[in-house]
């Protein structure tokens, strides 16, 4: 049924080792953000950047998304974007709850 051009993912071992090393470095750097008590927007920015870089490397290389057909890539990667709407709604809702609690517990 399947032609083996699209199923068998064959990439050199060296590539996986490089990504492994990169993930180690990125994890170490995000740990150092906490270790050196970086605070404020710099902290959150760094944490998010390292998180997204690590997630991207894992999905693209380890999970072979970089070599999959575009139809599958979009089918899997686009729907989670809806979650950003949920996060936005819940952030607004949580802020509202926080403010009403401040009024009530004052």
């Amino acid at each position, binding site marked *: 049924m399947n032609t083996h051009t699209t199923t068998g993912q064959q*990439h050199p071992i060296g590539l996986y080792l490089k990504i492994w090393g990169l993930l180690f470095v990125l994890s170490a750097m995000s740990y150092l953000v906490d270790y050196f008590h970086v605070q404020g927007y710099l902290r959150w920015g760094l944490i998010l950047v*390292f998180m997204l870089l690590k997630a991207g490397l894992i999905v693209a290389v380890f999970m072979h998304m970089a070599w999959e057909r575009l*139809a599958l890539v979009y089918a899997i990667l686009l729907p989670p974007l809806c979650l950003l709407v949920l996060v936005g709604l*819940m952030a607004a809702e949580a802020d509202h709850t926080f403010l009403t609690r401040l009024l009530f517990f004052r």
Partner: protein
Amino acid sequence: MNPNTATLTGSAVAASGWRGLVADWSSDRQAFHVSWGKAMMWIFLLSDIFIFSCFLTGYMTVRVSTTAAWPNPSEVFALHVGGADVPLLLIAIMTFVLISSSGTMAMAVNFAYRGDRVNAATLMLVTATFGELFVGMQAFEWSKLILEEGVRPWGNPMGAAQFGAAFFMITGFHGLHVSAGVVLLFAVAFKLIRGDYDKAGNYQVVEIVGLYWHFVDLVWVFIFALFYLW
């Protein structure tokens, strides 16, 4: 090649009822040009993305809306080593263990596709061992938090009461995923070494298990950043 479409087009009358339902769902239509196993694993993972995202969004909501101070994870998860508190030490080790398991899994997939089933199975067993190590450290972390720090789902001595509920729910569900992955890895490694996939000439099961395992690592990346470091 495809008897289903032949009968469907041959006889104009499509089967109805349960027979029709089965015929429709099993008829050979393909949107993604990958094997059904891989497509189904990806769709399962997509649903899992939504589950974990709902947990993390719920955690964000309670953390933003609480008026009590959120316990500082850097201090809560510190380990006492050599007379000093090292922040998040156990969590950092757990992160490195899980990333290493992802690395060995990726190499196992590579060896499996080359037909080198001894190396592939060995690397899968190494991956499973890393996974067990991770779950073991998580069990240690949980018992330390419950027995020594007195953290409960409904409250804790350090601050906001919602901390325990969010922590146990999110890391517990992730730990369950790791445990299930370990079982899956052992099962597939056993079948691999027995030569089941050799006979079929198809090693893709290893890649599909790999997808699941990398996903478990992926979820940990988000938990590590958003729960432990935030």
